[in-house]
């Protein structure tokens, strides 16, 4: 469906404007607290022009690139899930009065345009669509569904992967595979910043048709786009060998590697908070002091907290090794049983934002090297 257009940076500005004028709250990458976060943008001037992000396990630095690129970095510190399933959502609230019990009206779902969504992040939204759309989802995710349905997605393909990226292993990038309205690829051609723009949906095509001054790309520009993306695919910061991975993890529940992780892991939960697909929530019920106002709030939770597995008077996963094992095994193994795909899209956030630099690809590889499935200790399965 995709007709390809090309423009300079002014076209990007006009696109943001067009989305705002059609009633969207446009969210995109901006610099805050010395990192990239996603927040409301008014125009192209809000984008982190000329910035890049250096990402290593447990380390992130923003640096000036010395060029004019608008998209010369990879994923933001937090993910888009903060808008679709906000960290704290009031599920309902209500008041008791002499007239009876009245619930407060539910708010209208916001109408977002997400600008600058990376291919792995588009994939992550699809992963969560499956989670919330399946029988495992709860009816109270309705707000997320309503918001998601009217969200306009402007994807940006990755021509310079970050140090912790492994989308190629997860088959989610570096070019967006679907699930977007408009996709942009930023190239430098003959010394000029050029933006190849294509529609990915009817809504996307309509926006592009309404835009003036978009040009038709030259053969050379199209070639430059394709070769940049091919080069990106060959330059991933990390790889994850997914061959037989679900069975490997499920069969290594007693691998001593979990003890080594238990020593290193802080159980701080940063990894799950920044992950674009981690979806665990808890629900708090609050009643005002006088007992007349009740509020039920959903909050992001994490399998790394003790409260998460607290049942019958004690936590089921007391040891930190068991908590990490639960997390990685769910991401890369039991998620497949539940949802027919893995729960990781290869964005690298959990690696970068772990204060002690624990690396999911590294830990999976370590389990593979010390596979215990054929030894007696490995028998017994999921302990």
């Amino acid at each position, binding site marked *: 469906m995709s007709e390809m257009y090309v423009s300079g940076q002014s076209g990007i500005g006009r696109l943001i404007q067009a989305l705002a004028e059609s009633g969207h709250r446009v969210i995109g990458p901006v610099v805050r607290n*010395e990192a990239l976060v996603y927040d409301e943008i008014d125009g192209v001037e809000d984008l982190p022009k000329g910035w890049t992000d250096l990402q290593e396990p447990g380390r992130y630095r923003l640096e000036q690139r010395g060029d004019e690129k608008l998209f010369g970095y990879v994923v933001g510190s937090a993910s888009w899930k903060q808008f679709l399933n906000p960290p704290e959502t009031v599920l309902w609230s209500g008041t008791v009065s002499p007239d009876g019990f009245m619930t407060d009206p539910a708010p209208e779902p916001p109408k977002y345009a997400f600008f600058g969504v990376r291919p792995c992040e588009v994939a992550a939204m699809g992963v969560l669509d499956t989670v919330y759309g399946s029988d495992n989802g709860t009816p109270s995710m309705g707000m997320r569904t309503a918001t998601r349905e009217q969200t306009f997605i402007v994807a940006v393909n990755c021509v310079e992967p970050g140090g912790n990226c492994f989308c190629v292993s997860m088959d989610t990038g570096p070019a967006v595979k679907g699930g977007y309205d408009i996709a942009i690829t930023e190239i430098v051609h003959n010394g000029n910043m050029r933006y190849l723009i294509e529609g990915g949906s009817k809504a996307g095509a309509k926006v592009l048709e309404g835009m003036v001054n978009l040009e038709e790309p030259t053969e050379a520009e199209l070639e430059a786009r394709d070769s940049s993306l091919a080069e990106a695919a060959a330059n991933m910061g990390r790889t994850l060998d997914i061959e037989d991975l679900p069975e490997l993890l499920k069969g290594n529940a007693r691998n001593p590697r979990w003890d080594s992780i238990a020593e290193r892991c802080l159980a701080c939960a940063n990894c799950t908070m920044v992950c674009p697909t981690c979806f665990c929530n808890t629900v708090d019920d609050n*009643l005002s002091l006088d007992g007349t106002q009740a509020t039920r709030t959903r909050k992001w939770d994490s399998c790394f*907290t*003790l*409260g998460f597995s607290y049942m019958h008077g004690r936590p089921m996963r007391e040891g930190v090794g068991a908590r990490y094992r639960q997390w990685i095994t769910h991401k890369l193994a039991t998620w497949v049983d539940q949802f027919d795909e893995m729960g990781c899209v290869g964005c690298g956030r959990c690696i*970068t*934002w772990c204060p*002690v630099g624990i690396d999911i690809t590294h830990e999976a590889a370590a389990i593979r090297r010390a596979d215990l499935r054929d030894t007696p200790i490995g028998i017994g399965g999921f302990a």
Partner: protein
Amino acid sequence: MALPKLAVYKFASCDGCQLSLLDVEDHLLDIASVVHIANFPEASREVVEGPYDLTLVEGSITTPHDAERIHEIRRQSKYLVTIGACATAGGIQALRNWKDTDLFASTVYAHPEYLDTLHTSTPIKNHVEVNFELRGCPIDKMALVEVVAAFVQGRRPNIPEYSVCVECKRKGTPCVMVSQGTPCLGPVTQAGCGALCPSYNRGCYGCFGPMESPNTDMLAAAWQRLGVSHRELVDAFRGFNAYAEPFRIASDHHEALAVAQGE
């Protein structure tokens, strides 16, 4: 039906935590409508005798007299809730636990023999049974409202015990340790402050004490990679919650290493 009786007691402390009860603004009237504020000298001269249904205790035990007094208060209280770092961990004054209090007394006072003080500052739970601990230096005033509401409604308070990081990420603040190389106690500290410091580009100072499963060794190792010395680690762990066990053990450990390595 008579309202449950509330009492507030103070031990060695700055008053900040109990004053948050007066600082809850609109909620103060709500509190007064669900409990009878029976004994709260900071608020009222009127003292209704015990026993009390809910007793809030601020401050740590630092004198022989206080070590006695807390037992009488416990006897008078159905539920005893300690509030703040002093009451739950010994407070900043627990730094004396590593020092010579006689030397302090003789340096500061002309007649130290008039003083009757203990050599230690200890949390209330070391002396009597405590039903619930509300952490923080100071406590969060809305958390105090929650504790009172939970008591009145006969449920468990919604007070998390996980790390500051959970609140910090919910708030959308990028990790200051990862993105700026700023040492932060957040990963080993209990949530409750709303991750205040990191949102102002500062590391966490550990005001809410150790989280539920603190890995102080690994956090310290990460700080050392950022160039922090053992001596500085001792200072970091010896803050408002210095005498909380995980922080105390960590600070002792790094003190021994600092001495061994001639820092």
